[in-house]
């Protein structure tokens, strides 16, 4: 298991006192900006932790480093929710005293309205789970077209909200952390323009916002630590600049001139430039956080397509893969770890290590050739499909490394680059899905469910598009096991069984896991209490201080 949050807590967490951290201006230097500051359009908890400074949700991430941070914690609600009806009904009560930035109290109706907005096609982009989970949500078109609202969310009073689900979902408290669970006052909703000034329920409110460029947050006077124990909200002001080059961001953080001493980044992982300076005990070493975002980079076989319908081919290629070169292509061992399991190594996901087709550090071409020969396959030519852009890690760099590894095993690889914008579209339609694609899967919350269900649940093969079960694998036994785990409301018990399921499916070589992600972030000289949360591996801005 990777470094987790341990390194960072020891360096900066020790003598931190949230009571005296107030003041100063925090600068955030980011590569990608926030396209839409609308809670309905933000995917789960995206936006580099910034949205959670504005949008409180029913539950939220437990803002701790390491394992503790991978749990959900009550936010607007008083607890993680009360399941009933075998985890098909979830009831939440709102805590007292919570207000919007304009002082109006937050009611359960506001939460419901916020969720309804995320169904509107005018506001696309949010997490899709509720459409599947909520009863009768499949053809709900949002409050603009259907002002009557959705029936399966009930608000018996201003403090209570009840969700009626189609099937048992033990992970509901995790989903309730998604930004679409943030309250939106109906009176202030201006549709697509709402994001110009979304009404805050968190410690800050928007002073100015330019999509993808800048965001300035100032204190929300109607928020206090009395109604929110999780966020420290130390800086008085947060200035986010986006659209910067990663190398420039890191160089500025290293140099730390002027305001840059108070700067952090939530999306520019250090590059080789800085890694080369990160010797143990070096000055710079004290200014990094190391975290892990549960995500796996893998090669997905389409088992409905020759030659990948032949398990021997999949096994041979699994032997041939050279994970070291993939790791190096993505920035080296400091930021990537070789992975032989589909589940990444986080405890919350319940990973159980396995390596059924040992390829060693740099591939076992001899074994691969042998397997192919046994299957009577020589002169094999396969096509590897990848994105044309490297930013997601599924681009030409990794594809070239894969190509080279397979070449060593005597397999000729044709690379097929697809425009990044349409990549998911092409591979997500079984009709257009190529035989072997390079792709990545990240957890929407730290649990095995969102990791395994879309990929291996046979009932999730969506022929019209948006499919993630690229193996097109459908085993009733596996489907049944998934349902069974879903009904569990104890995360620890669930994790154990998810891990076992992963280990079982792994034997089939439906995918070739390549690497899991490690995140190393630099921060400015004056920044205190900077640690990566245990949920996404990013800096938790809600607790950072510059004083």
């Amino acid at each position, binding site marked *: 298991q990777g470094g987790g949050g341990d390194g960072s807590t020891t360096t900066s967490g020790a003598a931190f006192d949230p009571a005296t951290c107030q003041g100063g201006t925090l600068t955030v230097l980011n590569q990608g900006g926030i*396209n*839409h500051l609308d809670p309905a359009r933000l*995917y789960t908890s995206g936006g580099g932790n910034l949205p959670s400074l504005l949008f409180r949700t029913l539950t939220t991430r437990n803002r701790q480093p390491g394992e503790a941070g991978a749990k959900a914690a009550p936010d607007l609600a008083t607890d993680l929710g009360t399941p009933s009806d075998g985890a098909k009904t979830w009831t939440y009560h709102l805590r007292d005293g919570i207000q919007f930035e304009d002082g109006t109290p937050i009611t359960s109706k506001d939460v419901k309205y916020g969720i309804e907005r995320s169904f*509107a*096609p*005018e*506001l*696309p*982009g*949010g*997490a*899709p*789970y509720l*459409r599947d989970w909520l009863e009768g949500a*499949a*053809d709900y*078109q949002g409050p*603009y077209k259907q002002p009557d609202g959705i029936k399966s969310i009930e608000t018996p009073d201003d403090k209570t909200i009840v969700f009626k689900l189609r099937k048992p979902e033990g992970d509901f408290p995790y989903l309730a952390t998604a930004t679409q669970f943030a309250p939106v006052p109906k009176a202030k*909703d*201006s*549709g*697509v*323009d*709402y*994001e110009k000034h979304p009404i805050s329920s968190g410690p800050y409110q928007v002073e100015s916002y*330019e*999509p*993808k*460029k800048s965001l300035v947050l100032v204190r929300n006077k109607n928020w206090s630590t009395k109604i929110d124990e999780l966020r420290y909200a130390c800086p008085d002001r947060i200035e986010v*600049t986006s*659209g*910067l*080059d990663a190398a*420039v961001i890191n*160089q*500025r953080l290293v*140099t730390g*001139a*002027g305001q840059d001493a108070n700067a952090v980044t939530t999306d520019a992982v250090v590059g080789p430039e800085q890694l080369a300076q990160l010797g143990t005990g070096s000055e710079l070493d004290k200014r990094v956080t190391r975290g892990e975002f549960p995500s796996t980079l893998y090669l997905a076989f389409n088992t409905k397509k020759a030659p990948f319908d032949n398990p021997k081919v999949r096994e041979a290629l699994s032997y041939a893969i050279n994970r070291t070169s993939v790791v190096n292509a993505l920035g080296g061992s400091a930021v990537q770890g070789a992975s032989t399991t589909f589940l990444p190594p986080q405890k919350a996901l319940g990973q159980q290590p396995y390596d059924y087709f040992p390829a060693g550090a740099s591939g076992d071409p001899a074994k691969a050739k042998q397997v192919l020969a046994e299957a009577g396959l020589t002169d094999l030519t396969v096509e590897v499909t990848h994105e044309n*852009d490297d930013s997601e890690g599924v681009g030409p760099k990794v594809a070239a490394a894969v190509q080279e590894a397979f070449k060593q095993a005597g397999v000729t690889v044709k690379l097929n680059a697809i*425009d*990044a*914008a*349409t990549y*998911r*579209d092409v591979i997500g339609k079984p009709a257009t899905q190529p035989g072997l694609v390079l792709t990545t899967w990240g957890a929407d919350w730290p649990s095995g469910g969102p990791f395994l269900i*879309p990929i291996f649940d046979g009932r999730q093969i*969506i022929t*019209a*598009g*948006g499919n*993630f079960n690229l193996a097109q694998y459908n085993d009733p036994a596996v489907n049944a096991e998934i349902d069974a785990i879903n009904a569990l409301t104890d995360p620890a018990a669930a994790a154990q069984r998810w891990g076992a399921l992963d280990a079982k499916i792994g034997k089939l070589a439906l995918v070739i896991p390549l690497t899991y992600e490690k995140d190393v972030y630099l921060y400015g000289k004056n920044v205190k209490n900077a640690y990566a949360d245990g949920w996404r591996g990013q800096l938790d801005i809600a607790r950072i201080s510059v004083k």
Partner: protein
Amino acid sequence: MIGYLGRRIVGGAVVLLALSALIYALFYLAPSDPAVLACGKGCTPERLAAVREAMGVADPIWQQYWHYLQGIFVGRDYSIGPEVRHCPAPCLGYSFETSQPVTTLLLDRLPVSFSLALGAEILSLAIGIGAGLLAGARRFRWLDRIVNGLVLAGYAVPVFLVGLLLLLLFCVHLQWLPFPQYVPFTTDPLLWAQNLLLPWIALAVIQSAAYARLTRAGLQETLAEDHIRTARAYGIPERRILWRRALRGALLPLVTLTAVDVASIVTSAVLTETMFGLPGIGQLLVGAVNQIDLPVVVGVTLLTGLIIVVANAAADLLYAAVDPRVQLR
């Protein structure tokens, strides 16, 4: 004059119309779908169709283009969410990606690209003309040699290579300058200049080479002309001949080049802006292309096309203003 302007305007409009139609057609033929991107992860086909409808990309392409043209000339209405948004003419639509009006986006980015172009142009002109004059007046032979060499070198370096070296030298090694970050002129002129200095230098290294050569050649050519001989024959001092007569003729070709160059910096600023991380229209374009943000791509292309058309016309007008012999036609 009026007739001339009229013809230029009509010609320019035709060019721009053709350009926009071209881009529209290209993106229509392209296999990408902006709605897929907007819809996000786990988007179902039904929802995709609804999103496509909401974004207005479900109509046939010619209809979309027609609406687009309407937007430019008379403005148009978008009914999204609970309200109807009116986009007044000239309306270039809304970004698929961020839902901002494209006109706002462009106006927002233009000052950056313009600052870049203007400063670089002034710097290049100063360096280029200065060096060209020194070399062209043939006062110092060694200087002529050096300028000549630099001119050739200037032709042979791509801007991103210069940019890389400048960043390495001034921001990393010497740390004399901050990493460029755009500060609006209105916020702090000094910071504005300080931050743009490196990009200016990078562009000037390349641009001034052409100016130096042109000035030098122009000067030597003009000095060889008959009317200069006349001036000499009438005892007019060399210095006066140089400043009052030769320079005028020598700098004439620069007029055209300068106007066209300003346009080309603004339009091809993609590289410089990427290199130095400046939020100008070049950066806007690269992002938009990657996100199939059609309204923004067309908007940028139209704007840059407009700048080129205007700059060319301005160059001709300027030329006519500076050279009494030129007749506009």
